[in-house]
């Protein structure tokens, strides 16, 4: 079985986000970018499937600007076998919407014929939480979102999902699309020798046009605002004062 892992290049989760003065979005020029944290978990899971003999090949794919090459090299350094970069934008501020990403991924799936797609549950930039579900719809495949445990048994997979009420386990028909949650695994760091080796692994470059997908956004960004800042409060000296303050406010 081949495993396809879509990985997105996003602002590093430690970076303090700044809204651009003109309201067009968030400033991404000269900002540290990394692989979306959920996608690291997806890559890790794919590599573990390969190590367990359940997968033969792990292919990472990223859609966006040319710089997403770096993100793919990280996936290769972690242990993916090869990578596909689909260039769909020139400006680092252009975000390709999940619907367009899913359409491109559907074409890649057609070409690559993976038995499993492991995506992140959510990209931490647009916080959309949509691409895996959309890809699954376009392919007419089963889906298992927010996975904290994945167990592949022949032509089906048992997946435990983190849901509002707790945990739900479902069984899905293969091929399937799984989106991974935080507690599925702890991703490995790429070792220096593996980072060197990754430079020689194949990285194919394509464009959205090669797949005939129109990436024009459906959602026009009207504006981007800073959220309302909270007013700084006060430090209370002791528990008695805290209790008095809360009583005064009528919340306890």
């Amino acid at each position, binding site marked *: 079985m081949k495993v396809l892992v879509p990985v997105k290049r996003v602002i590093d989760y430690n970076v303090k986000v700044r809204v651009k003065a003109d309201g067009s979005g968030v400033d991404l020029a000269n900002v540290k970018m990394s692989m979306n944290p959920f996608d690291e978990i997806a890559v890790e899971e794919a590599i573990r499937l390969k190590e367990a003999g359940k997968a033969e090949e792990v292919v990472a794919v990223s859609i966006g600007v040319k710089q997403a090459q770096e993100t793919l090299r990280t996936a290769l350094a972690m242990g993916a076998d090869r990578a596909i970069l689909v260039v769909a934008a020139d400006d680092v501020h252009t975000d390709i919407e999940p619907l367009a990403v899913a359409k491109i991924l559907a074409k890649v799936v057609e070409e690559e014929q993976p038995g499993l797609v492991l995506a992140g549950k959510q990209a931490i930039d647009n916080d959309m939480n949509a691409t895996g579900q959309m890809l699954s*719809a376009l392919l007419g*495949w089963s889906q298992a979102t927010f996975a904290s445990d994945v167990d592949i048994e022949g032509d089906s997979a048992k997946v435990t999902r983190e849901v509002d009420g707790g945990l739900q386990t479902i069984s899905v*028909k293969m091929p399937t699309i799984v989106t991974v949650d935080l*507690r599925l695994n702890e991703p490995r760091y790429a070792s220096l020798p593996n980072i060197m080796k990754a430079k020689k692994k194949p990285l194919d470059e394509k464009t959205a046009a090669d797949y005939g997908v129109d990436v024009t956004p459906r959602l026009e960004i009207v*504006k981007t605002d800073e959220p309302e800042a909270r007013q700084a409060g006060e430090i209370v000296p002791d528990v008695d004062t805290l209790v008095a303050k809360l009583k005064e406010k009528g919340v306890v």
Partner: protein
Amino acid sequence: MAVLLLAEVNNGELAMDATAKAVTAAKALGDVTVLAAGASAAAAGDAAAKIDGVAKVLVAEDASLGHRLAESTATLIVSLAGDYEHIVAPATTDAKNVMPRVAALLDAMVISDVSGVVDGSTFERPIYAGNAIQTVKSSDAKKVVTFRTSTFDAAGEGGAAPVESVPAAADPGLSSWVEDKVAASDRPELTSAGIVVSGGRGVGSEEDFKLIESLADKLGAAVGASRAAVDSGYAPNDWQVGQTGKVVAPDLYVAVGISGAIQHLAGMKDSKIIVAINKDEEAPIFQVADYGLVADLFTAVPELIEKL
């Protein structure tokens, strides 16, 4: 214009709070038809009919719709979509599972976690863990939207909308339910509670997390947790508050042993009053707290329980 709203139905029961909040948001878009779907959904449909502002209720009952499996639920919604310009739901994990699938089947871009409705095609939503609020205008013929419930008040009850039943669509048979692990609790539900007490890594162990639960019980509060507390096994996953967990906005949020990472703040910074108890006076949580107490939680929390 007509709106189809997917009600939150758990094991045949309507989740009133989430559904009624989504109704408030949806009313601004047009006449609201609520869809109650499930293996049993009639009682949920009757309950939804009472929400103020609901014009009609559709009930779809079929074994294939049990446990809200995404494939069958999405197929059902798409079969009904023709009559509606907006297809909406509260942004629960169930809806986040189903609605993007619906959107893709309708060739529309889903608009997730909407926190404000500007007009029929323009919506506000937080991005980057709430570090920015983006206003987007959809050019799709049908708008598929999930609403962040913490920012809308629940619609009242007192309506009496007509209830109709609709057939399930053909079951694609792609997935099946195996089991649920749901801990029963007498505490209020996290996303609708008036008070939330959350513990973080500072609590140190599952055993000591009982302290957080005792404080919550004293206050009649729900219990929340940071990701670190959940990852460490102190608290179950469904207690996680934050960018990738639940979003809450109670009257009072008490953060104990939580540093205040941006991903945690994303899930609670709209709370009315925030209290932080942390032994590190530099902890970022104090920057959003109305009342901060710099103290060891193992002395402060027992004292707080005693004095409340």
